[in-house]
């Protein structure tokens, strides 16, 4: 279930990159100077960082860390 939700999150983030609704609009100006299309994608970049943080917290490939620790201990104490 967790993986399915994360999959939906990733697909949703990819889909909202294509912001048709801002295509022909310059206004409103965010902070009185950023056209909405630019401000949206600046916000999108932050959304990407948050998405990556969620992925790191939830589906980080921990087995790679374990394998590395095994390998390191093997190099330090080789089996004869």
């Amino acid at each position, binding site marked *: 279930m967790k993986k399915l939700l994360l999959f939906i999150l*990733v697909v949703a*983030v*990819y889909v909202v*990159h*294509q*912001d*048709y609704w*801002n*295509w*022909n*609009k*310059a*206004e409103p*100006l965010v902070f*009185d*100077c*950023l*056209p909405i*299309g*630019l401000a*949206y*994608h*600046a916000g*999108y*970049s*932050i959304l*990407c*960082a948050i*998405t*990556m*943080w969620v*992925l*790191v917290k939830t589906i*980080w*490939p921990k*087995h*790679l*860390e374990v*394998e*590395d620790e*095994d*390998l390191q201990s*093997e190099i330090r104490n*080789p*089996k004869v």
Partner: protein
Amino acid sequence: MIPVIVIFIYLAIIAFIGSIAFRRSKTNTEDFFLANRSIGSLVFFLSLFATNMTAFAILGSSGQSYRQGIGIYGLMASSSCFVIPMTIFFIGTRLWALGKKFGHQTQVSYFRDRWECNHIGTAIFALSAAMLVPYMIISIMGGGTVLADISTSAETHQPLIPYAAGCAIVAAVVTVNVFFGGMRGTVWVNIFQTILFLCFGAVAVAVISHALPGGFGEYIKKIMDDPKNHTLLTREKMPPQFFWSYTLIPLSSIMFPHMAIMCFSAKKVTAFKRTVVLYPIAILAIWLPCVFLGVLGTVTLSGKIDPDGVLLRMLDTYAPVWLAGILGAGIISAVMGSDAHQVLALSTMFTKDIFAHYGGKQKFGERGSVYFARAFILVVTIVAYLVALELKAKQGIFEIAIRYAFSGFAAMAPVMIAALFWKRSTKWGALAATLFVAISLVGFASLQGKPAAPPSAPKVDAAAAVKPTPPAKPKEDIIWKIGEGPDAIKILSRSPATGDVRFMNNYMTVVPMVIGSAFFMILFSLLTRPPSQQTINRYFGRTNTPGQRPVATQA
């Protein structure tokens, strides 16, 4: 003069850092090419980012937004914010683990072992090297141009550092840094470089905002009210299909040899955690100010402007001289950071995948391999420098080659994904996909057209003394269509503005290339015999068996 002095101080610092790295180095390939796989978390992020950021991120982005408007950010930057960290998360971490486990130092050595075939590795090596070389040459060309632009005197309009000398300086500093320091020197220098160019955007925006009377909002409203320029604040002129298809381009990032090799150099897999989260923020920090200032350049600057030099012109106009020098050093950092990694990656590939693989290592040993790598670095930068001098007038060709190289590397991503995640994938699938990518690259490049000439000033029909004749709209050039009339399906056409080949109206050629590559990978893998069970167990089993690492890389 002051900017030149500041840049020379910067170059001296780079050389100094490289020399310290040299003193710390050992004479074996794992140390020279991968800094003994010892790169820590923060350094790994800074260096990986520097590897992928070229001068385009600063000068090209502002130049493109000067021409095409704010859409450039969504097109190139925010798509990278999503795709690149994803590929680092899912592919980079796995590559790192396999490198640690089996001693791989390049993608090619992994492919060779994974699919039990030398030739597939050699084919991928040849394609990767062919796509990487123009990138390296244009980095040197970019460095020469930037140094000439920064050092151009406002009075005489002559550069203090001519293009040839600028190229020589960039090539020499990169060579010294990589030749002596290897990966360690490159990475240490990257720390300094990345911090410098990450600060660039914020400082440039602050300084220019301070110098502009009325603030940014007033100038943006000016653009909005100008019927000729208001589309710069929207994406009206950017087809949605083109915008979407560009999201496939950042798949190229992890397939660039210098990026993959960087992934092998991390000390621990946890180094990737910070990198994938910070990567989008770092892109935002560089691209947002550059794109914004590029658009502003249309109303704040006057006279004839080279779009790629718009940011330098703004700094020249609105920043104090000394600060313009430091900001110029930030731009040079972006050039050198990626160029050093490209040179090192080419050297690593030639040494490991060709020289060592075909018997050089057995004959000359580890020390001999490092000497070979250093000699190669020297030769390749001298050749790249000479090409940059001789073919300056043909810079456009290299730029086109790079555009296609990005599509080519992106189209190789299915091969990497299959190698990592699909047990059933075979060498024949990989070979078919590689050949498809190579053939389609050559095919699309041969169909490339010339960009339309910039519109000239409207002519007045003197005889009739009526209103001016508007400039003719460039006609779309259709290469292959099915059917006739308005219902005709345009399979291939050329973009009137750039001459680039487009697929099905407005999709980039990267779309059929990625789909085709994935299709051939799957089809030929299903039709042929999978690798031996022993190899599949080695790569897909969780437990490590002693003695798996190739003997030579255990040193």
